[in-house]
């Protein structure tokens, strides 16, 4: 994760989250306080997919229009710096765009049942990470490494390869100066209007 020239302030991070939440009518909930998330964590643990502690402490999860976060928005931790919270905000709202585009039932079934579709959705959301970093410092992630994170999502090696290829095609758009994700467009507009000195 890239560090910006200066970290965004807590108020800036809260402001961005509030802006996207208002636009998307989304909600934020604490992952640790959610009984649903604890049940999901135990289920994933029992299936051997993911350690329950990792699921609850490392990963942000979006279900419907609710974003379950393992941090308090605007409060930095070693794992979830304020810049990382900015990226997570945009990434998760891309999933809400996907849900709106495809319908809640179709999107949820595809995401849960089809690892190739899951890799495609995550690659689109990961493009937000790429778009924000490019806005920040003009650099593009190591796309193979970024796609490799999908191993935590129950994706197979061919799905990870697909995500890498999708990200490479997206990165070409980004290097040309384009921003494809609506959530990234809204976030970049907000950051340009409300922050100074973040960009290199």
């Amino acid at each position, binding site marked *: 994760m890239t560090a910006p020239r200066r970290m965004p302030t807590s108020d800036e991070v809260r402001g961005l989250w509030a802006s996207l939440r208002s636009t998307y009518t989304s909600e934020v909930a604490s992952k640790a306080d959610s009984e649903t998330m604890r049940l999901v964590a135990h289920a994933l643990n029992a299936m051997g997919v993911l350690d329950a502690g990792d699921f609850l402490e490392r990963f942000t999860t979006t279900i419907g229009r609710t974003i379950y976060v393992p941090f308090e928005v605007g409060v930095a931790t070693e794992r979830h710096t304020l810049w990382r919270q900015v990226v997570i905000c945009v990434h998760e709202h891309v999933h809400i765009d996907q849900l709106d585009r495809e319908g809640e039932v179709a999107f949820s*079934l*595809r995401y849960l049942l089809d690892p*190739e579709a899951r890799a*495609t959705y995550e690659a689109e959301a990961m493009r937000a990470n790429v778009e924000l970093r490019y806005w920040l410092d003009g650099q593009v992630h190591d796309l193979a490494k970024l796609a490799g994170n999908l191993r935590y999502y129950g994706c197979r090696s*061919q799905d990870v390869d697909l995500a890498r*290829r999708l990200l490479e*095609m*997206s990165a070409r758009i980004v290097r040309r100066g*384009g921003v494809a994700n609506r959530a990234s467009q809204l976030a970049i507009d907000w950051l340009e209007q409300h922050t100074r000195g973040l960009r290199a």
Partner: protein
Amino acid sequence: MVPHTCALCYPEPMRELALTLLLALLGGCGSVCTSPATRCAGSVLELCSPSGHWRRVADCSEVRGLDATWECLEVDGEHDCVPEGQL
């Protein structure tokens, strides 16, 4: 018609119908394209996946940047989102 690659798609009619609908929802199990082909489906840039299904990369008409309208075009044998008039 249920694609022949689906081993679970041959039981009694109702179950077959339910499974067929589910698979249709998921994109079906038969290949429709050859990986790693690309195409423009209208303004949507797509990549053919290893399983032979078209997967969305981006809707080029929704790309913003350079104060331009973006479009899906074939560039050097591969499809891509480019600002209108750039090529």
